[in-house]
């Protein structure tokens, strides 16, 4: 009997929603289909699956307000959907479009944000492009400057490590006012994917089921979102939310990794007994569970803090990302080890999750970046507390 883990913090409605999505991805995006896309072109994108997921299930706009054509649910529902994408490795840009682009645009706001969110909700995929060749995830490290002439803003340069680039109809690019530094002068700009001067350069990616690309901009026309020079706080909120949501997607994959390992250990016999009866394997399985429980609890706390606008939102996003990244990698590594030869054979799936775990651990900042951020946040909070008292 396959392992079934008890859920937590899921109402009956949400559990039903999760079950519907799980069935949907099992039927519409089985691993054979994921591999077909993976071995096809370099886009890492299944347009028909995305069309059904957006138009029939409403996933693209699940956390977008009904005013803008979305479903009007919260980040918790989006996190459930992302968890199922992480579990199935479905080649759709839900994280890029709904979590990264969607949350940053919503948090920056401004007159045009509604129209952009509407388009995301309708399934016109978007993504966020901000990291540059230095590889620093902090938006304050962005160097790309805008060129503004009259009413026109143009962007030139490269953005690296863009996720969901091939599916995107629109890029939201973080760039800055000329001569500005850090958060001051940081801005969010919309660039149409089919505009002149926009090129996408697919990269050979370690994670085969979610390839990355470089966005090349050569004087591409861009539109400013929000007020000039005031985008930084919204960008930071949006990135914190996306970080929390990413951990939820990672946890979805980790649950699959745990189930696969435990089911294998229960079924695979050597020396006339299930290998899961040997303590060497049983303890590995116990460690998978320990990593999983800590991770899903941390991811849920981060998502709920974002959803509720908790002042500890940033802190809890970093708690989750710094914890879930290494835990996910340990789990994928040990799950592969438990599966022996199967664990590193191309035609079996363990390596697909291993690759995703490696890439997701780096995405939006690895554990050291978030640990440093935590130490600084806690120290400054203590310092402020001491100054006040």
């Amino acid at each position, binding site marked *: *009997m396959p*392992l079934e883990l*008890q859920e*937590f*913090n899921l109402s009956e409605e949400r559990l039903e929603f999760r079950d519907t999505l799980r069935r949907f991805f099992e039927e519409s995006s089985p691993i054979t289909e994921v591999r077909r896309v993976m071995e096809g072109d370099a886009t890492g994108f299944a347009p028909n699956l995305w069309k059904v997921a957006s138009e029939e299930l409403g996933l693209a706009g699940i956390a977008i307000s009904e005013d803008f054509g979305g479903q009007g649910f919260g980040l918790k529902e989006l996190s459930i959907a992302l968890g199922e994408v992480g579990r199935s490795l479905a080649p759709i840009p839900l994280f890029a479009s709904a979590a990264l682009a969607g949350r940053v645009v919503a948090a920056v706001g401004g007159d045009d944000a509604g129209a952009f969110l509407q388009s995301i909700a309708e399934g016109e995929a978007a993504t966020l492009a901000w990291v540059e060749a230095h590889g620093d995830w902090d938006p304050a490290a962005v160097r790309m400057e805008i060129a503004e002439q009259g009413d026109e803003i143009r962007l030139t340069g490269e953005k690296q490590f863009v996720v969901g680039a091939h599916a995107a109809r629109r890029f939201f690019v973080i760039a800055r006012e000329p001569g500005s530094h850090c958060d001051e002068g940081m801005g969010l700009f919309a660039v149409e994917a089919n505009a002149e001067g926009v090129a996408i350069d697919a990269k050979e990616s370690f994670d085969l089921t979610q390839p990355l690309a470089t966005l090349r901009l050569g004087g591409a026309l861009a539109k400013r979102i929000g007020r000039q020079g005031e985008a930084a706080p919204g960008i930071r909120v949006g990135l914190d939310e996306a970080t929390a949501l990413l951990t939820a997607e990672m946890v979805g994959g980790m649950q699959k990794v745990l189930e696969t390992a*435990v089911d294998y*250990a*229960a079924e695979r016999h050597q020396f006339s*007994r*299930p290998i*899961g*009866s*040997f*303590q060497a394997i*049983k*303890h590995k*399985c*116990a*460690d998978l*569970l*320990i990593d999983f*429980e*800590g991770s899903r*609890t*941390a991811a*849920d*706390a981060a998502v*709920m*803090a974002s959803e509720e606008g*908790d002042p500890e939102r940033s802190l*809890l996003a*970093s*708690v989750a990302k*710094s*914890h879930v990244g290494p835990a996910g990698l340990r789990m994928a590594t040990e799950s592969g080890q438990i599966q022996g030869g199967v664990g590193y054979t191309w035609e079996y799936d363990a390596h697909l999750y291993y690759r995703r775990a490696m890439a997701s651990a780096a995405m939006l900042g690895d*554990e*050291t970046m*978030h*640990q*440093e*951020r*935590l*130490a*600084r946040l*806690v*120290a400054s909070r*203590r*310092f402020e507390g001491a100054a006040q008292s």
Partner: protein
Amino acid sequence: MRREDTSEEAVFRQEVRSWLEANAELRSEQLEAPLDHSPEAEARAWEAMKVWQRTKYEGGWAAITWPEAYGGRGGTPIQQVIFNEEQSNFDVPIGFIAASLGMIGPALMRYGSEDQKKYLPAMLRGDEVWCQLFSEPEAGSDLAAVRTRGHVEGDELVINGQKVWTTSANFADKGFIVLRTNPDVPKHDGISFALIDMNQPGVEVRPLVTMRGDRHFNEVFLTDVRTPLDHVVNGIDRGWPVTTFTLMNEGAFIGMTVNSRTTATAMIDSARETGRLEEGVVRQRLGEAYARERVLKQLQDRIKASLLDGRAPDVDGSVLKILTSEWGHERAVTATWLQGAAGMLTGADAPGMGVWQDQVLARGSMAVGGGTLEVHRNGLGERALRLPKEPRFDRDKPFKDLKTSG
């Protein structure tokens, strides 16, 4: 998963806080003197613990979830959680009595006769403290291998054998003991669980000093020790279910302990004071310690949330036990590492009066006491993940025919 108190709970919390403020001192952030593990200090601590238990009893807080008939408050698990949370801010001597109550109390309520349950109020008042006489030289993780013998003489059980790692046996008034009453049947079928008086001839207690320097546990030699037959819980040869029930309670308790002086926040504070927060590797290790502390708290909050909803906890207690032990130890090692060369000192000569060094040395009581981490990992594999058990050779043979190491 956070949750605000309901208005009812907030009222309860305020009531708890007011009572604690009136009866105890807030815990200082720093130790004022090194922890004193001398026998005299331990005897004083024992008395202080009994006094605090008595104070709680008189305030009606000694056992919030126990029925009123047994001296409890008849309250809910969440009220107990609230009380524990508030109590953790105060400098009060808890520890052993709470652990002991949490183990034997529920076992007597579930398996005890009406006469046996009469021990409960004195236990709650702190008048009689109970120790757990379980482990033996040849029975540790394999507790069902106990050899301490009990044979019936008239209406008494006569006990001979040796126990070891018995926490606080040097102070305890009473004990609950696991012993073998029938060696001719398979091991689990010949075990009894009895209540004994520790203050009687034939009970010889020899304190063992831990690596931390405290007299945490003892060897106990039992020679013709007697207890009435009606002090056998659940009947002769039917002690194993009582024993496993008691151990489950012990695990749940140990997983929940915290010490507010040894937090990651305290580590970050001291790194800022010494300027070491400027170092990237220091920030990373402190950030990791902080994240783990929060994740552990979040896991505890999950248990709390299930108690609130009246459900069984949806995260296995062994997950908490293992993480509390392993991360607690790593945190103490990191904090001592952060002291650099001064980490080689201890006590009054070390930063913070050596509180972290003491924590490094306290590792064993978490990692071995209450079941080794390995036994808990077996439990997770078999209970939570339903993996098959190891083949066993000791289930069906009579106990006397089993192989042993000594």
